[in-house]
């Protein structure tokens, strides 16, 4: 969680200082206590609506449940079935390839463009808007359908390749290529990490660069020794959020394949398979077990990231 508070040092400081209440009399204080809880009432309800399902799904993960009859406790049977389920492994493979290819590429592009934009160019706001817009649309059904067409047999990508005499593959219907179209779509939405990088880059004091160039440091050296360390908390934050987001991809796979995850399960994202299991086959116990496996995977990757961050993320206090 430290990333989030690092993003907001003011928030953490104000939390610690406690506010002006210390001078007040006891009754006023109690009253403030009570109204504090009153303000949080909707949130408390929301937490109940989060915590109860959280543990309920943990319980269901150990049951056989089809929504219409009572859940039947089966111990680890769901997890055993998962180990032997080739489609589950396939969905993990699809999700991992998607994540570990598209997240690094989109973060690298986002950082690169943010660096160029941060050089005091005119028209920053216009460029920023143009690059940011796709990230608002990337998850919409309209755009995924457009992608399906763009990469279709008669689509404009193959039309463009045709100009150079290249016969493009059948991007959407060939299992070897279908996932790559969605990776391109994800990279297309690099704008939101880019805006966060830009905000971070603007906080780096220019005097560091001035001092470095007086000392004769090259541009590359300045980038490595000043920029990267100073924005490393932001790289870290973007990395965590992008990983968590892309592990949970659903709409892209669903719309691209018409809900099947095809061709040949090549776009069977983990959450798409979870949806198929839970809500078309009504194996809700299995779906809950899958959800918990995903939670574990995300937790492990986040933990690894936090541990690794000690070695490369630099917090300038």
């Amino acid at each position, binding site marked *: 969680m430290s990333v989030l508070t690092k993003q907001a040092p003011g928030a953490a400081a104000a939390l610690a200082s406690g506010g002006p209440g210390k001078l007040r009399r006891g009754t006023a204080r109690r009253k403030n206590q009570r109204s504090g809880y009153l303000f*949080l009432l909707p949130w408390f309800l929301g937490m109940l609506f989060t915590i109860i399902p959280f543990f309920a*799904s943990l319980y269901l993960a150990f049951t056989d449940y089809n929504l219409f009859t009572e859940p039947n406790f089966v111990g680890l049977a769901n997890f055993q079935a998962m180990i032997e389920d080739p489609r589950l492994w396939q969905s993990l493979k699809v999700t991992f390839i998607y994540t570990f290819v598209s997240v690094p590429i989109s973060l690298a592009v986002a950082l690169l463009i943010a660096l160029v934009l941060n050089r005091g160019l005119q028209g920053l706001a216009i460029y920023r808007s*143009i*690059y940011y817009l796709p990230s608002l649309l990337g998850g919409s059904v309209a755009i995924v359908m457009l992608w399906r067409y763009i990469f279709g047999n008669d689509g404009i990508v193959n039309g463009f390749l045709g100009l150079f005499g290249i016969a493009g593959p059948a991007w959407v219907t060939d299992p070897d290529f279908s996932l790559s179209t969605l990776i391109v779509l994800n990279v297309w939405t690099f704008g*939101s990490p880019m805006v966060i990088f830009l905000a971070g880059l*603007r906080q780096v004091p220019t005097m560091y660069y001035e001092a470095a160039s007086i000392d004769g440091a090259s541009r590359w050296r300045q980038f490595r020794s000043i920029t990267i360390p100073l924005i490393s908390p932001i790289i870290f934050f973007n990395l965590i959020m992008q990983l968590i987001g892309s592990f949970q991809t659903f709409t892209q796979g669903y719309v691209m394949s018409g809900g099947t995850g095809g061709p040949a399960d090549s776009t069977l994202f983990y959450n798409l398979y979870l949806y198929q299991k839970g809500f078309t086959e009504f194996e*809700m116990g299995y779906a809950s077990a899958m959800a918990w496996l995903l939670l574990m995977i995300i937790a492990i990757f986040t933990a690894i990231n936090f541990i690794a961050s000690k070695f490369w993320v630099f917090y300038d206090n």
Partner: protein
Amino acid sequence: MALLELPTKRKQDKPAKPKDPEDALAGTPTTRFSRHLILCLVGLVMLYPLLWLVSSSFKPSNDIFRQLGLWPENWDFSNYEQGWTALNQPFHVYLINSMIVVVFSIVGNIFSCALAAYAFARMEFTGRKLFFALMLGTLMLPGHVLLVPQYIIFSQLGWLDTYLPLIVPNFMATNAFFIFLMVQFMKALPKELDDAAQIDGCGPFRTFLRVILPLCVPAMATTAIFTFISTWNEFFGPLLYIQNQDLYTVPLALRAFMDSEGQSMWGPMFAMSVVSIAPIIGFFIAGQKYLINGIATTGLK
């Protein structure tokens, strides 16, 4: 909120540049030009699919295939007419359905998240730090873990095929991002405001309503725009809870086009795709200041 200070900071930097043009961030005119060139090219590549979508929606379906050009040779507005009436209901029914969900979601998010944020940011009570940590923890919780039990609860309440599963959670401050955003914003307001209001005899609710809330309009605008965009795009929730075709939201309606897919349907489908993303682009243009500040402070997508 350090962002708010940035514009002045940059202005201070500017006068220094002409003294040392070689080392200034902006570089020489040649490098500046090449940077603009690269940025424009990248921007063009990024916008091309969108522009092509708009242009294709005005082309007869036969012209769409393999036409890379952006200017329709034969203008054809019939795609819009055809698309509007191609499904069970005319398309404005789906637009209205989506609007209903969006409006209630915005109201719910602003109401519940502002209340919670006020408590976290400006009040003092036992357990506040613990609750705040819990709230931040839910930011990272993948929603699918809660999916099956929540579906069971909603189905037992008889809420399937209604908009309640899509709307009601927003009234319970379940979007931790917006709470976080508003906490950040409210922290930046001077503490003296509450003290002054209290001396004037305002209780916490009046202070919240009359003093703090009016100052939080930018944060509420950010919340409203983000809620609009995410709810308007939301596909999974409606897919799960809405079976009745008359109740479809726009993304479900678009998916229905895909099911009835024949080559002749591409044009109408593109036309309705344009209709479906136009409000997002409109809101984006109107509210980009709030959007960009919002993601920069919270990392919200």
